[in-house]
């Protein structure tokens, strides 16, 4: 198993390099001349040329990439001109806030999604199934940013149960209970769509598994139905749901862009939105790179868990 994990980690390295190429290319495709953009349209041609040389923009694209990659590997992602601080510092700070939010949501949507899916399949055509199916439909059709606004109206404005925005209270907060208090609404909102997707898939794969011969064998052995469902059927269904949970990690981190904006959560998503508006492209580049790398690692983790569950994949 350890050898397998190591093998997968090594195999992930080219993917990560591929990501850097794409991110680099996207930024290189930006129309217009970077030096002119920085210096303004009244800059003299000499100054533009000098800055281009200073920035290494007179070199060929592959050379530029290698220089950029070299800097990246030394932790230098450039400097954000709108914040006037190193991109890496800002991104790391924001990234941890996003991971707290997205990680919590991922855990929530896995638990709720799996539970709802299993219950829905076991009670197929019954009331539980109908209710779950209805909520799944609502869940995957609701704009999450709108749901966030509704939750703020209901739980922050009307009921005053949870704060409407931020990660910590401005005065006197900063501890774990304060964080959880601030986390409840955004994490729930963010998990809704993924819960629907996971519940739907879990239901289908439970139904698929329950028709298998080995489930009949388990029943023929005289196992209690509870055990047939919770042990035999669930484990087999989980094997096909795990990769989708990995993919949902991407949707949750992407969805964080909206939720962080709505709840003013100081994460990478709200940073990206601001950076795009202010055209702070180095910041965008750094943020995208971090989240994409995290997504690759999430999928890698899902692969490894799947392999641990299914001996046939080893």
């Amino acid at each position, binding site marked *: 198993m350890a050898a397998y994990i190591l093998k997968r980690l090594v195999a992930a390295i080219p993917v990560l390099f591929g990501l850097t190429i794409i991110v680099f290319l996207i930024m290189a495709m930006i129309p217009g001349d970077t030096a002119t953009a920085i210096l303004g349209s009244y800059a003299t041609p000499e100054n533009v040329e000098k800055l281009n040389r200073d920035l290494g923009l007179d070199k060929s694209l592959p050379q530029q990439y290698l220089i950029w990659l070299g800097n990246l590997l030394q932790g230098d992602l450039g400097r954000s001109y709108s914040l006037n601080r190193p991109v890496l510092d800002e991104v790391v700070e924001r990234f941890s806030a996003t991971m707290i939010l997205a990680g919590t949501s991922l855990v929530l949507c896995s638990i709720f999604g799996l539970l709802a899916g299993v219950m829905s399949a076991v009670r197929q055509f019954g009331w539980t199934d109908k209710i779950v199916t209805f909520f799944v439909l609502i869940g995957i059709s609701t*704009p999450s940013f709108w749901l966030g606004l509704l939750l703020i109206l209901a739980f922050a404005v009307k009921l005053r149960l949870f704060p409407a925005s931020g990660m910590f209270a401005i005065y006197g907060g900063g501890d774990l209970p304060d964080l959880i208090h601030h986390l409840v609404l955004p994490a729930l909102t963010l998990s809704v769509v993924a819960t629907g997707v996971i519940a739907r898939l879990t239901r289908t794969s439970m139904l698929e598994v329950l028709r298998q011969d080995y*489930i009949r064998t388990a*029943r*023929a052995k*005289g196992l209690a139905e509870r055990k047939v469902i919770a042990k035999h059927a669930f484990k087999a269904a989980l094997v096909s749901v795990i990769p989708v949970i990995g993919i949902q990690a991407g949707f949750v981190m992407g969805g964080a862009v*909206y939720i962080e904006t709505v709840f003013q959560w100081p994460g990478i998503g709200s940073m990206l939105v601001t950076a*795009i508006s202010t055209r702070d492209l180095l910041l965008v580049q750094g943020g995208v790179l971090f989240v*994409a790398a995290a997504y690759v690692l999430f999928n890698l983790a899902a692969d490894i868990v799947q392999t641990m569950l299914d*001996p046939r994949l080893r």
Partner: protein
Amino acid sequence: MTEAAVSPAPKARATARRPDSIRLLLNNSLATGGFFILVTMALVALAAPFLPLADPDVTAPANRLMPPFSPDHFLGTDALGRDILSRIVWGTRVSLAVGLSATVIAAFFGSLIGLVAGYAAGRVDSVLMRGIDMIMAFPYILLALAIVAVLGPGLLNALYAIAVVNIPFFARSIRGITLGLSRREFVDAARLSGKSNAQILFIEVLPNVLPVIIITMSTTIGWMILETAGLSFLGLGAQPPQADLGSMLGEGRKILFTAPHVSVVPGLMILVLVMSINLFGDGVRDVLDPRLKSGVLTRPVARTTVDRKDASSGLKPRADAILDVQDLRTEFHLGGTVYKAAGGVDLHLAQGECLGVVGESGSGKSVSAMSIMGLVPSPPGRIVGGAAFLGNEDLFSASDERIRQLRGADVSHVFQDPLSTLHPLFTIGDQLTEAILAHRQVSGSEAMKIAEDLLNLVRIPNPSERLKVYPHELSGGMRQRICIAMALANDARVMIADEPTTALDVTVQAQILSLMNTLRHERDAAILFITHDFGVVSAICDRVAVMYAGKVVETGATQEILNSPAHPYTAKLIDCVPVLGEPERRLDAIEGRPPMVNNLPQGCAFADRCPKAQADCRAAPIPVTEFAEGRSVRCLHPVKEGEHV
């Protein structure tokens, strides 16, 4: 075991006139509902210029933030005094147009990539698909953001971004289908007839791929509308004064606390729009994708439904039988059609006896055997009549918990394919001890010891090592030995073996048969042995029951039946068995096919294939006649001794 239930179904569907897709779609009430909401919204949006609506862009500071249901402003006004109803209608127009355009663009380029990659295969395929994989390595929304960052905010740029990130979904699913199609005969035929690759791709392949494109479109368009609305909400899509539903929501958010309706209404509109699309899209998918058609994906419950119309209380168990099945009727209800898989089956087993149940696929032999412990998949199966006595206990009136206690303890099962009947994700040891622990109060380590003894019993070398392996690591014969060990775990009185040797190769078959024969003598267990093979019957069974079209047509001692079959069907079936050293023996496959069990004739079901059939055979149900000690036949004109049919 479900062959009787499942195999007739597609044929029945094929013979019935195929309902056209539109009708099928309208039968689905949810999809219909979604469709009508969607059409209404689209029509209203299209008709916006002709409707008596206020100008959506005219500001009126005096009328700002009027609540819903105000006179002249049904949904109120926004922060600039603009009429929300009018803005919603115009905004829906923009959102729909953008979502639809993004879908069409993504579908066009994605399908093109998929078609080319799947058709060309080889290097072109791997280059294209690696590119697609790279795009998919990014979280979806993040990539859209990066694209917008490059192109700059704006509705059109948001549209492109959303379209680009959706291309992989189309490319992947279309490539898979195309890859399969391009190896099919009709593509080869087109190639031989001299058509160019482009012609083949777009004239032969594309029409077959079209349903998948439509399914993918109908399931992704909702997403695309949501995501473009999201970008607009963030201020990266539609720029003022242009407005779609997302940007209206984004503007309303600034005054959320003072005038919630300004943001709540557009959000609600997005929800209704996307939900109706999703409902309709699911309906389209169900119609176009036969695998997902309703009724296919039903899960069997723990025990077959027992729904006996005639109270079978009059039936009494035989004195000498350990298992006695009387007048068993099991049906499958599939889409309004009733398949009478077992139509009044009588079987009985004495202590230590092995009864072979023989018949073709679909004769109802497996269904009858699986009905005994309620293992017929239900839905669609249900037991509608008869009784099964284990000793004096009627199993069909026993409680679910009682059946659970008996399963694996008093009555155990061995199934056909040992690869699919063992759970792939648990070790042999886990699965064996589980069978023991379900019925005995022993500790885990004791159970492990018993499991090891069981593996010894079924002649598996190195039992303690084998307990740690997974089923896929063993050979077919080994796996079946494990299954037999599992069936022996609790000293069952009756073992029901459903074609236990069919999936094995011949030498292994012989080993398994002799193992089962030895074990039943050692343990004095009765075996109900289901098979379609008379060769197997002669090797292990004391008595035989021959089944045809859901009924037992002949019973008797094995040797007697083999020597002098009474039912013409039995005689034909025996003739089908090749015998070594008798090359002159006729190998008659029986002409014709067995009747469908949803449409059985009134008289003898075999009459149409029977050389001895006469008018009276078809007139009325044929009774069972007991013509000798322990021999009975369901035939009016049985085969006489020495006669050849």
